[in-house]
């Protein structure tokens, strides 16, 4: 792979002082812990009339995890975005609260194992922050990661289906969803591939009517990804992973090439894959039918199905919610702590609480995109945008599924839902975003990889008063609006012909 040469970071004197914002991060992280602990106490007092005895233990546990993560950030990612870690801690903490709450309703005990997975997740976060010195190393392993994760995803096909989908690898009591970690691996692969190949993909093609369609020979990679997603869909009955893989690839392709034609091709290919499956594969077909007629099972006299129960839960929450511990979302039954966990948030925290929750996700997504905007190298840009998109797509696919906006896909809400694979994956995702944001804000940004910029070309040492969009936090906008002047170009230096 051509992008393998990574020049030693060449520190350039900082143009003025950049604040590290670690204190902000610490305050917000502690605030996130406090919110989660309050939620935990609230669940106990709503159900038992008293604060649970282990509230302090829970608070200390979560607090220690958060502080360790924060310490790692201070140590190795001093200039990282101060919002990412608090958002992740808040989401993970609230997830634990609601899982504990549902434990109480279902006489099970999933919160301790979720806390264990959270610990492992934070440990992986710390490991990534401490040991991934430069995220651009990942570019080297792009193909290894991609093929490794594809291999892992193939394994469940030969294993028996678990809960109607072949997406699990079960070893004894531990089960693992390779599709989760594969999402990150594929985002890395896409970023690496597009960072190198985007010129070809962007600048060649033929015009059919108004669309600039790609050349046949350039369709190769998208066809491969399409085949992979479709294979996931057909062989594993996993509509959600299929949509996320493909959605991620199309978005990144568009970001890299700026060509609408790719989106058109992508949509057609998704349609070709999904429509027949939706019509004829029973497991997926039933999801589509439920989506269109969520109350059909009631009318058929079979009682409310899970989607109907979920809608009842959301409706019962209304604007302000019933309060933690006072809803009846457990009526959803199976997978209420994983696929359906958002319904409990909806019932007990209401529309207001859900809006806040979605905004927390939105903050992480926006911060990921900002990092992408600030970073210099195409790989970093594409990767941080890809990871942020990945998060947004997951939130959309899961939340849209349980609220009957789109067909249900049986995925888990990032950070909130019960499930180790998903939790670990999302902590790694945040760690990567955080490392990249550190690189983006760090004074004396490293030079771009040589392959895309003339090795000798020095970076401007000070942000130009206008023009360069690399200034950290520079967000003033004077000519927002005319989006269509296609000749605008970015900050990337174009090699001299």
């Amino acid at each position, binding site marked *: 792979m051509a992008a393998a040469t990574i020049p030693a970071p060449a520190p350039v004197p900082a143009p003025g002082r950049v604040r590290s914002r670690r204190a902000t991060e610490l305050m917000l992280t502690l605030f996130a812990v406090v919110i989660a602990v309050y939620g935990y106490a609230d669940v106990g007092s709503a159900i038992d009339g008293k604060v649970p005895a282990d509230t302090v233990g829970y608070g200390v546990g979560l607090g220690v995890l958060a502080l360790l993560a924060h310490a790692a950030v201070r140590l190795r990612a001093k200039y990282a975005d101060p919002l990412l870690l608090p958002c992740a801690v808040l989401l993970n903490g609230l997830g634990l609260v609601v899982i504990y709450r549902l434990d109480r309703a279902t006489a099970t005990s999933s919160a301790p194992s979720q806390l264990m997975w959270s610990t492992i997740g934070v440990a992986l976060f710390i490991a990534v922050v401490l040991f991934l010195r430069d995220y651009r190393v990942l570019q080297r392993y792009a193909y290894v990661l991609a093929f490794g994760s594809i291999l892992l995803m193939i394994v469940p096909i030969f294993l028996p289906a678990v809960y109607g989908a072949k997406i699990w690898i079960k070893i004894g009591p531990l089960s693992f969803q390779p599709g989760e970690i594969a999402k990150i691996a594929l985002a890395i692969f896409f970023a690496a591939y597009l960072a190198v190949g985007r010129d070809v993909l962007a600048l060649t093609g033929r015009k059919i009517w108004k669309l600039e369609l790609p050349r046949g020979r350039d369709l190769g990679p998208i066809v491969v990804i399409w085949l992979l997603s479709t294979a996931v869909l057909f062989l594993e009955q996993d509509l959600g992973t299929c949509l996320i893989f493909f959605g991620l690839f199309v978005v990144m392709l568009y970001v890299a090439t*700026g060509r609408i034609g790719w989106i058109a091709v992508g949509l057609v290919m998704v349609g070709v894959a999904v429509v027949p499956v939706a019509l004829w594969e029973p497991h997926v077909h039933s999801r589509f039918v439920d989506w269109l007629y969520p109350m059909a099972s009631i009318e058929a006299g079979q009682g409310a199905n899970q989607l109907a129960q979920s809608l009842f839960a959301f409706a*019962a929450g209304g604007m302000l919610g019933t309060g933690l511990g006072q809803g009846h979302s457990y009526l959803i039954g199976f997978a209420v702590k994983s696929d359906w966990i958002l319904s409990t948030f909806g019932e007990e925290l209401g529309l207001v609480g859900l*809006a806040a929750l979605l905004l927390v996700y939105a903050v992480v997504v926006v911060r990921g995109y900002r990092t992408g905007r600030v970073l210099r190298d195409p790989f970093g840009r594409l990767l941080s945008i890809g990871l942020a998109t990945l998060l947004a797509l997951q939130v959309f696919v899961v939340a849209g599924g349980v609220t009957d906006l789109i067909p249900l896909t049986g995925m888990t809400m990032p950070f909130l839902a019960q499930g180790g694979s998903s939790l670990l994956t999302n902590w790694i995702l945040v760690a990567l975003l955080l490392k990249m944001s550190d690189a983006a804000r760090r004074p004396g940004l490293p030079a771009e990889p040589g392959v895309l910029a003339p090795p000798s070309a020095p970076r401007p040492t000070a942000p130009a008063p206008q023009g360069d969009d690399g200034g950290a936090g520079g967000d003033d906008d004077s000519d927002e609006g005319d989006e269509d002047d296609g000749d605008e170009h970015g900050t990337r230096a174009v090699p001299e012909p």
Partner: protein
Amino acid sequence: MSPFGRKNRRSGQQQAAAAQPGAVRLSLSRTARRAGMFCLLLILALLVNLTRVQVVQAKKYNDHAANQRATIARYSQPRGDIIVAGKPVTGSKTTGNSLYRYRRSYTDGPLYAAVTGFSSQTYGNTLLEGVEDDYLSGSASSLSTRPLLDAISRSQVPGGDVYTTIDAKAQQAALNGLGSKRGAVAAVEPSTGRILALASTPSYDPDGITGTGSAVTQQWSTLAADPAQPMLNRALRQTYPPGSTFKVVTMSAGLANNVVSGVDVATDSPNPYTAKDTSTAITNESAGDACLNATLEYALQVSCNTVFAKLGVDVGEANMVRMAQAYGFNQSSQTVPVGVVRSNFDTGLTGQAYLALSSIGQYDTAATPLQMAEVAAVVADNGTLMKPMLVSRITRDDGTTVQTFGPQTFSQPISSTVAAEIQQAMVKVVTDGTGGNAAIPGAVVGGKTGTAQHGIGNTGTPYAWFISYAKPSASAPSPVAVAVVIEDGNANRADVSGGGLAAPIAKAVMQAVLNG
């Protein structure tokens, strides 16, 4: 402003670069901004859809029949109690089921089943449990002392208590009297309309059907399949031809309309009596020719069909209907507040033959036991009909009163003079006539027996009726009026008579009230 950064203002130098070959595509920051907008649009779409589910269509989902939340909330707290004579006759028991935590229980289920009805997690609510459900379950808004706060905090209001007018001793006497016979008793306090007893036999224990599960459904199927219909409230929900007891109404119409000038005035009554438009004669049970031209007093005493059949015809259809309706017949939606089925006296009868039969409580004339207790009550209360009432008060869980119910006048069918005359005749029925079994030493009792034919060609075992009132002394107001009906399919046909089967039960109920 876009959260993803701004569009670049191009410097001249960059424009020069743009002119280079290969630089014609959108910049990364431009496409990234659009992709970011797309991501935010996804989240916005979620919020819009959540607003649809949680706000716009919330009511549709909340009220959906398959949504268990309302039911769960209902059974999450003990239900308010139904109270008889200061003591609850209901209770709540924990089920051990985490979904429906409390079920209704009954301290003396069979005794009060005709009053309380049942509140079942499986089969819903009936009678008082049904009509007062909003109060008992705590959902009535008037139970909340802080409505706004409770609405916002969604705190549940404890169920209120419903105080009945039932007299525990009269109720017990009614049930004991009915024993294993099939029938019903209704007793009211004439001056107020307060219902003192409501009994229907065979009774059942509603305690067995309040929960969920197979034992409950088993119990229910047994009750529902029983040909004796134990769950039927015969006192309020079943009508019977009132037979001779209806003669009190006909007598009222005759006297009130001056067709006959007094109870001791001889009437112009043939025996047998054949109405103009029929060839079928109406005869009397009693032997001899005593009913010929008998006085109303005597006619009531020995229950002359001929006299009252002719009297009804003489009064005329319009006046008979008016009197029957003043007594409470033909009300299609009577509530006490439990619904009472309509007692019927035909309107628009064109043939005299039918009017004659209707006037002696046959043909289509039909009445609930409560209706016939009201007939006795009108006479006892000097001509005034009070609206029957079963609930006197509703209180909150803390004992404060939400609502009190006072006596209400329904109508004045007859003057006090006419009432006094009828009282005189009814007392004679007990002292010298067919109602001797109802006599209470030391008290003044007025009554009327009835033995109603029914079935095709009158082949069914007749219904035995007795209606009566009692006074501690001739001048005192009457504390109780009662109606008893026995429909005993197993009894020997000849033994079925109002005086024989029903009067002793009425006596026991009246005694229970008189003795306090």
